[in-house]
């Protein structure tokens, strides 16, 4: 092995979504956070008083909560330099043609309208800066009572349902960044799937930051009523700027009795975005919650999707994949809390560090008293492809019940010369061989992705293998 990143991997550093559109809205947006900013956001959205009160509570708690002194280095975030709200267009569109030219062409380049045309997805939300600019859902789902709107619209049109669940899974003061999100949230998706309704193809959201020093704080709330099923997919990109942006989302999911929710994220922010996200779901009796979490981009990601297993026979699953290149720290993981008997959870984490990047797995399995016959398995594998990268594993396990089965395992390995030699002796070029080893390594997670995302992931890996050594 070499002491630096092989050239075929260095290719990975070429970020394909780094273009920036002209930025009229962002240029005029104000920087910094104050009560005025929070009141202004609320007033622009004509929100009810209770939401403004909640936002102000969030602002107070944000001021009181400490920054984390563990995990990634967050000292680079300048809260006074961030633009907390940027309105890119006055009106939400329901056809791509209605969008301003520059925004439309952005989504064209990302390939979103094409996927919708081909009916690969059941509904699309596109968030540009602070607000959702495009929204569409398949007519038959709407007729069945499925609600899929942006979160601002959700509050306006379904206030009662919204208020019943908002902030119940992740309280305002859960942590500093959840408090910040509560204070300045804007956009995100609000989804309600009625009893027994199966949404057979995924709903999709696409998040794009365009403005430099932008803070994107979307808020997503998903309620899957008894016996329903929904798969929600989100993707994220941003331009490359000299200074940093902040993405701090809160995602709350309520999975009711015997329902199932799958939530897939392919996060490919540019390398100047701090990605600090709180995601948590509650699973009732017989319910299943699945997180599929891909972290490819960003400067720093701290994200640990959680499932609180509250009803008997509830299931939680997290599949996590992280790739860290030069200057990146992916501090990702999962959290499972077993609060009821006969619950089960599984975590599979795969990470690849290269070019001096750092991947960390951080997780918690907690089995509370009374959660007998719980089962949990954790499997973490890390792959290091050079000598300058770094990989950490920080698993926490807390068991307070005798009748449980809990296992954690982790391995860290490098791409071995033997593997490379074997594949090359079968006639493969070195870059092909390397790509095959890496693909094989992430395959258990990749096969759980919707096809177009699995292809995208494979494309990313192939890209890093381009320009092979001799």
């Amino acid at each position, binding site marked *: 092995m070499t002491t630096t990143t092989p050239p075929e991997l260095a290719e990975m550093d070429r970020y394909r979504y780094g273009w920036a559109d002209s930025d009229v809205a962002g240029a005029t947006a104000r920087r910094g956070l104050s009560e005025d900013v929070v009141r202004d956001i609320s007033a622009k959205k004509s929100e009810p008083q209770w939401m403004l009160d909640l936002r102000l509570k969030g602002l107070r708690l944000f001021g009181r909560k400490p920054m984390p002194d563990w995990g990634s280095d967050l000292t680079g975030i300048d809260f006074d330099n961030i633009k907390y709200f940027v309105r890119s267009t006055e009106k939400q569109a329901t056809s791509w043609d209605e969008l301003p030219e520059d925004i439309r062409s952005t989504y064209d380049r990302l390939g979103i309208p094409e996927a919708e045309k081909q009916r690969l997805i059941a509904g699309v939300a596109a968030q540009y800066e602070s607000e959702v600019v495009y929204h569409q859902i398949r007519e038959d789902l709407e007729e069945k009572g499925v609600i899929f709107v942006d979160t601002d619209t959700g509050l306006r049109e379904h206030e009662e349902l919204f208020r019943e669940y908002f902030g119940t899974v992740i309280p305002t003061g859960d942590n500093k960044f959840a408090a910040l999100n509560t204070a300045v949230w804007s956009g995100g998706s609000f989804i309600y799937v009625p009893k027994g309704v199966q949404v057979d193809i995924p709903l999709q959201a696409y998040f794009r930051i365009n403005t430099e020093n932008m803070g994107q704080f979307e808020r997503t709330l998903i309620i899957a009523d008894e016996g329903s099923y929904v798969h929600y997919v989100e993707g994220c990109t941003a331009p490359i700027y000299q200074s940093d942006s902040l993405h701090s989302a809160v995602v709350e999911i309520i999975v009711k009795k015997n329902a199932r929710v799958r939530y897939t994220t392919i996060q490919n922010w540019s390398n100047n975005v701090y990605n600090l996200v709180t995601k948590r779901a509650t699973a009732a009796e017989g319910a299943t919650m699945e997180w599929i979490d891909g972290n490819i981009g960003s400067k720093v990601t701290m994200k640990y999707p959680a499932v609180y297993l509250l009803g008997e026979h509830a299931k939680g699953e997290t599949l996590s994949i992280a790739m860290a290149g030069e200057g990146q720290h992916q501090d990702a993981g999962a959290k499972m809390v077993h609060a009821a008997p006969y619950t089960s959870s599984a975590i599979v984490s795969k990470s690849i560090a290269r070019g001096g990047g750092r991947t960390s797995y951080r997780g918690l399995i907690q089995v509370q008293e009374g959660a007998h016959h719980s089962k949990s398995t954790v499997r973490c594998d890390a792959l290091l492809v050079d000598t300058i990268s770094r990989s950490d594993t920080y698993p926490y396990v807390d068991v307070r019940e005798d009748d449980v*089965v809990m296992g954690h395992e982790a391995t860290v390995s490098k791409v071995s010369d033997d593997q490379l030699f074997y594949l090359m002796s079968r006639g493969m070029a070195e870059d092909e061989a390397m790509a095959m080893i890496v693909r094989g390594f992430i395959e258990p997670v990749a096969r759980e992705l919707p096809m177009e995302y699995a292809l995208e992931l494979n494309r990313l890996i192939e890209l890093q293998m381009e320009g092979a050594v001799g």
Partner: protein
Amino acid sequence: MTVVEENRTPGDELADTPGATGRAHSHGAGTVPDASRAARRTSFEVADFAVPTGREEEWRFSPFARIKALFEVAAAESAPALEVSAPEGVEVRSGSLEEVGAGTGFVPGDRVAAAAWQAGGQAHLVRIPAEAELDEPVLLTLRGTGGATSGHLVVDAGRHSRATVVLDHVGSGTHRGGVEVRAGDGAQLTFVTLQEWDSGAVQVSQQDVLVGRDATVKHFAVTLGGDVVRLSTNVRYAAPGGDAQCLGLYFSDAGQHLEHRLFVDHEATHCKSYVEYKGALQGETARSVWIGDVLIRAAAEGTETYELNRNLVLTDGARADSVPNLEIETGEIVGAGHASATGRFDDEQLFYLQSRGLAEADARRLVVRGFFADILQRIGVPAVQERLLATIETELETTMPAAAGATVPAAGSSTMPAPAGGQQTDAEKAEEN
């Protein structure tokens, strides 16, 4: 839905993650987290360590109220009595820290260890001459007599020596102890530390192991007694080629808090480490904490490491924390991995034994014994092994009474089933490529 809020654990401080510690409030930019486990402070000065609040990562698992007094230098009033039985040729001396040459393989890593160091008192040296090969173990018994004590022990194994040293903690009182194990080049040393305190005893100790070039050190910790035992073991390598095994066993009863913290710091090239701790918990308030930190520094190419912790929770409400942390700063390693499993009996093993005519209570005891026997056998000192087996036997007698009239084969006999434990087995050891 409020149940979610009630479920919050101390770890929930931020972004839904465990591991948060409550350091001073800061608004805005915050602090830079430690780069790795190696960044944690070590110092001989008590003043360099703030008095813990109990929320720090390194203290948050410990029963704070019961160990608070140990943070002050004055807590120790006397040196504990040390009984020594050593084969010929082994040098045993007592004196001040300076007189026994302490501190070359030991630096306090927390306030308690620094306070113990500063309290001074009597230190002991056990020196095995170079190239000596001992057939009999060195037996040391540290007997507490109810008061508060501090002490320091240096075990110095000369180059190419071969020896076994057993340090047995018995009696009562409050003890803070530093132990410094130095294995010279090519030495083969087994160091066994037994915590067999009477109930009521409190011990917070730090044991540092320095492994010389091509030396092999086995550090074996067995903790059965005491109210609170917190043992921190740190392993460092002085030169390439070292091999360290850290093995441990604990059995926590109601009211006991048994905490083992390990840190293996790979800084030299081509060294190996293997850590395996097994614990059982019995009684509603039984508590165990196991932290296993392994750091492979960028320079430590060719490192091979594996960590394993298994817990058997025998009663509802007993709590086992298990945290195997792994930090790796280079890809040029032979292999690294860890596994942690916590669970109850293997139902199939129980069923098998019951189908052979054993009562359930007997079958359960047999499985627990099998779970421990496997690791006990690796101590390599038959007399100690037998005594520990007898102690565990007594614990099992009182906590899981035998069914009347049933006979139980002796532990370690050939009819013993495979050790029980979690469902993840050693066989699934890290794939090393």
